[in-house]
């Protein structure tokens, strides 16, 4: 019953976010969609994803979109949607075909989950999702941190867009100052807990980025510029560590990304901590990077 309610509200929010009359309305509906999505992940026994969705999907995407709303001119012309009926029919047909082709897979069972169990102790961590993320499918994660870096490089190329930053207000200043240490502690806890339970580099990085974005909005964050070596190192360190581990295991060890079993826990921890730092730095610059913080 609860799932039915969540599902219906999710679909309603999705349609509302697209078709709502004002841009501000659609952004708010999309923000609510993100929050409810986190609840849906929790309902589907995916705590990792609920954390990630809440921090990334609802938090940072919301900040990004509302920030962009500031900069973009008000929606001037709202043309009637182009031949909406035909596109809607096509999508409905695709949806029907998709559901029909997805149905048989409900009673299939995938051979992969039983394979994860016995290999857990050799993977260096106790929580299966982190083991898959950083060990069994580590190549995906490496490329994915590269995707994050690429997005930052793309934003670096764009001309700076000046945002009318409102003057920070004493209450907000006070609140963000009290909240900052809590975020750092919770972020660290999430990172450490990654090897035993739900949590890990991405959730911790996203949380730290959210904290940094809040501090930067209140001009509390110290002046950061791309020309500072420290910022560049903190952005690149995650990918650089992962890549050096990959190259080292390929040349000295016994294969690309094959961690020697004695050091696998230490290696994974090193990779995860550096990845958290670089994810936090990259996401902060992505959401709030302006002018000389990005331009070299």
């Amino acid at each position, binding site marked *: 019953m609860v799932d039915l309610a969540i599902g219906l509200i999710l679909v309603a929010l999705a349609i509302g976010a697209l078709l709502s*009359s*004002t*841009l*501000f*309305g659609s952004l708010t509906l999309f923000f609510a969609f993100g929050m409810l999505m986190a609840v849906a992940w929790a309902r589907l026994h995916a705590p990792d994803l609920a954390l990630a969705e809440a921090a990334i999907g609802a938090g940072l995407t919301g900040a990004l979109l509302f920030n962009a*709303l*500031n900069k973009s001119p*008000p*929606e*001037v*012309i*709202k*043309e*009637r949607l182009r031949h909406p009926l035909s596109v809607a029919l096509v999508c409905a047909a695709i949806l029907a075909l998709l559901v029909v082709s997805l149905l048989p897979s409900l009673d299939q069972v995938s051979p992969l989950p039983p394979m994860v169990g016995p290999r857990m102790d050799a993977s260096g961590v106790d929580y299966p999702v982190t083991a898959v993320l950083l060990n069994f499918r580590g190549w995906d994660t490496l490329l994915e941190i590269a995707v994050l870096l690429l997005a930052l490089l793309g934003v670096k190329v764009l001309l700076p867009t000046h945002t009318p930053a*409102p003057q920070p*207000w004493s*209450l*907000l200043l006070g*609140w963000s100052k*009290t*909240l900052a240490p*809590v975020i750092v502690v919770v972020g660290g806890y999430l990172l450490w807990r990654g090897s035993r339970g739900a949590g890990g580099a991405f959730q911790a990085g996203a949380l730290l980025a959210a904290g940094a974005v809040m501090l930067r909005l209140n001009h509390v964050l110290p002046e950061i510029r791309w020309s500072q070596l420290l910022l560049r190192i903190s952005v690149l360190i995650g990918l650089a560590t992962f890549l050096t581990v990959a190259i080292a295991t390929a040349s000295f060890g016994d294969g690309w990304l094959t961690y020697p079993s004695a050091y696998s826990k230490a290696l994974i921890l090193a990779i995860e901590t550096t990845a958290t730092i670089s994810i936090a730095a990259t996401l902060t610059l992505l959401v709030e990077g302006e002018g000389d913080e990005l331009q070299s």
Partner: protein
Amino acid sequence: MSELLNAVSWLALIAGVAFFLTGALGVLRFPDLFCRLHAVTKADTTGFGLITLGLLLRVDSWPAALLLVLVWLLVMGSGATNCQLLARYGEGGHPHMGEHKVRERS
């Protein structure tokens, strides 16, 4: 003993949900920004407090209880700040807040 606790926690949960409903009703019905903010913040915070109380009675381990209280404190703090922020910047400060929609010819 646990029977009584169970009943009290159910009571608290139901009251909490009732408060949330009134808060939502307030947002829909009230005319301008300040009334709505008032409704949302007041009703939802008390509702949330009651729900946390209801859950506290059910939870069995101490760390979980402490976590719940921490969550409650954080939500209380952020709820109040957001309300003040919206009140301060919401009214005149923002062209996009929905009221100043540019005349759209559809």
